[in-house]
């Protein structure tokens, strides 16, 4: 879908590729992604594999629904975790461009956990707080829904997010010198320069 803006066609829908890392517990993680078109699997080791999930032409949030059963965490006799099922969002590409992981984690997504009863009971018994989210995480040890949230046109929105993030971390001088984010006081100089050019 295309709309016109300033003589440039602005794309409204996006193509998304998500690279997931799956860690074997007793079984492999089970999940669904809405609108998913295809999934390519690569084995990394006996306990880890990667999935590349492709979703085309979307304009609304992507939802990854992860379901982890009881008993996927295998412990030794003294309680040490030997292996645990886990799902990790490793990388995300939009229109074949890799997104910055920090932006994805803190500004573009959230995880709403859906804890198993046994975990909630364990926390209560041990007086641990259960954080019901939404959480800013990309590694999931519990069932839940991970939402990849965005606005369209995507790239204008993403660009603003990126700039806000940089602007929040650096002072004015650094922003001007190293990031090209500067005040608009150039405008006066450009006007003067144009005036000089027109005087010829």
């Amino acid at each position, binding site marked *: 879908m295309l709309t016109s803006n300033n003589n440039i066609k602005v794309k409204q829908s996006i193509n998304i590729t998500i690279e997931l890392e799956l860690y074997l517990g007793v079984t492999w993680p089970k999940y669904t992604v809405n609108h998913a078109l295809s999934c390519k699997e690569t084995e990394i080791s006996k306990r880890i594999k990667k999935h590349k999930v492709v979703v085309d032409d979307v304009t609304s949030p992507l939802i990854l629904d992860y379901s982890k059963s009881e008993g996927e965490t295998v412990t030794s006799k003294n309680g040490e975790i030997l292996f645990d099922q886990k799902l990790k969002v490793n990388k995300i590409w939009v229109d074949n461009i890799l997104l910055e992981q920090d932006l994805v984690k803190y500004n573009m997504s959230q995880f709403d956990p859906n804890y198993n009863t046994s975990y909630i009971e364990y926390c209560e018994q041990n007086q641990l707080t259960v954080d019901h989210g939404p959480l800013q995480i990309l590694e999931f040890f519990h069932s839940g829904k991970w939402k990849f949230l965005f606005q369209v046109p995507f790239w*204008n929105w993403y660009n603003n997010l990126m700039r806000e993030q940089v602007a929040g971390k650096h002072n004015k001088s650094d922003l001007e010198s190293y*990031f*090209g984010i500067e005040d608009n006081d*150039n405008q006066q*100089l450009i006007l003067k*320069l144009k005036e000089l050019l027109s005087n010829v």
Partner: protein
Amino acid sequence: MFKQVSLIALPKQDFLRPPGALPILAAACEANNAEYNVYDFNLWLKENVEPSIWQEIDDNWSDSFVASHMDTMWYKEFLKFLNIYVDKIMLSSPDLVSISIFSDYGCFSAFELIQALNSRPDRNTFKIAIGGTGIRAKLKILEFKEFCTFLLSEQKIDYFIYGEGEVAFSNLLKGIDYPGINNFDAVQIDDLDSLPFPSYKKINPWDYKYLTTPELTITGSKGCVRKCTYCDVAKYWPKFKYRSGQNLADEMWHYYKTLNITNFEFSDSLINGSMKQFEELNKAIIRYKSIDKDFTPSYKGQFICRSKNLMPESSYREMQEAGCKYIYVGLESFSDPVRHSMEKKFSNKDFEWHLEMCGKYGIKNSLLMLVGYPTETLDDHQQNLSALKKYQVYAHSGIISMIVFGYTANILADTPLYHQMDELKITEEYSNGSEFSTFNWVSLKNPTLNLKERIRRWIELVETANSLDYLMPRNKHILSSFINLLTQTSTKKKAFKLHPS
């Protein structure tokens, strides 16, 4: 011969990381058992002068010899702080004061420092040496004489070192004459792997104004594999020489182990000048990463676009895995014919492949552009404007993290373009325009591209890029310089007349 050395770095240089010359010279001192102290006047000045005064000093480096500055507050403050600093330098009673002049912009502070050193009553107790690419600057105030030649003939300095300092400086410390010391017969170092790693024993990278975490300069090669027509790198390094990828990765690992620093900026003209070395470097870093999971290096450097055959996807994948985060690409123009004239030797198709791969692997680019090359036509300029629209998604995604339009095309002495002036029928545009000589040209083969047209195209590109959300570095200096140029030319006569034919 020399036992107590003061190593000095001067403005104008970046504050992000220690100047590359200081640790190299420090290593040479250590190898020759000379005691030394390190003085970064650039950093000290920034930290000690009131910020508004420092900004004025910084804004005026390029034309600081202008007499009208002498009575200004910033100039007086600069001299005051310089004299305080000279006293600090002399506290260690050096027998050699070695001054690194990073670029032409360093000549002003070097000149003042050398004056201050020469006016000391203990001047006969120490020698003064200068080095760095700025030493051959031809300054208007010195009637365009070379800076180092002038200073030596006036006996303001005792030595200059031309070319690479690593070996020449070692020989100077030992009192041995060597090519490049007080002459221009420098020889390039053949075996860069044989040099000691630069030493940071007396330099603290944490003192610098880094953006997120401290970083260091690292040098993988000298010279360039290209002979781009506008560039004068070949004047300093005629041959392309490079270190082995393993040796470079060893140096990075060494800084990780000794300084806990893992961020690096290459000083090379091109990090991928030799594909063999570049691939070896990335593989060696990846091997180190597999040994120690906490070793997560990142590096930045200047990069040449290559075809898909020479830079296949696997090369970009390894760059990312090895920590390549940011590259500076001398694209110069989006027009194939213009880049062909420049001898850049890559096509729009290659660039498109490069952007696709950088997008896929998240490698950020700063594109370096050259507006108004002598052969650039209006059609080429239109291609530049169209390409900005075409690649907007890469600006929005941060893959084109910055676009730098520079000062428009200058013709520098000793460049291939300088030697093509007859062929391109390049002549002076204005009579008596020596004060803006590098801008004062027009090609009679493309006569509508005069200075004003080059500036007009520059404005159009900057405004278009801005409207499309491309980020650009601070352009205030360039705009002021263009205003000065147009003001100067308004009183000049044209040096040639165009005939209708």
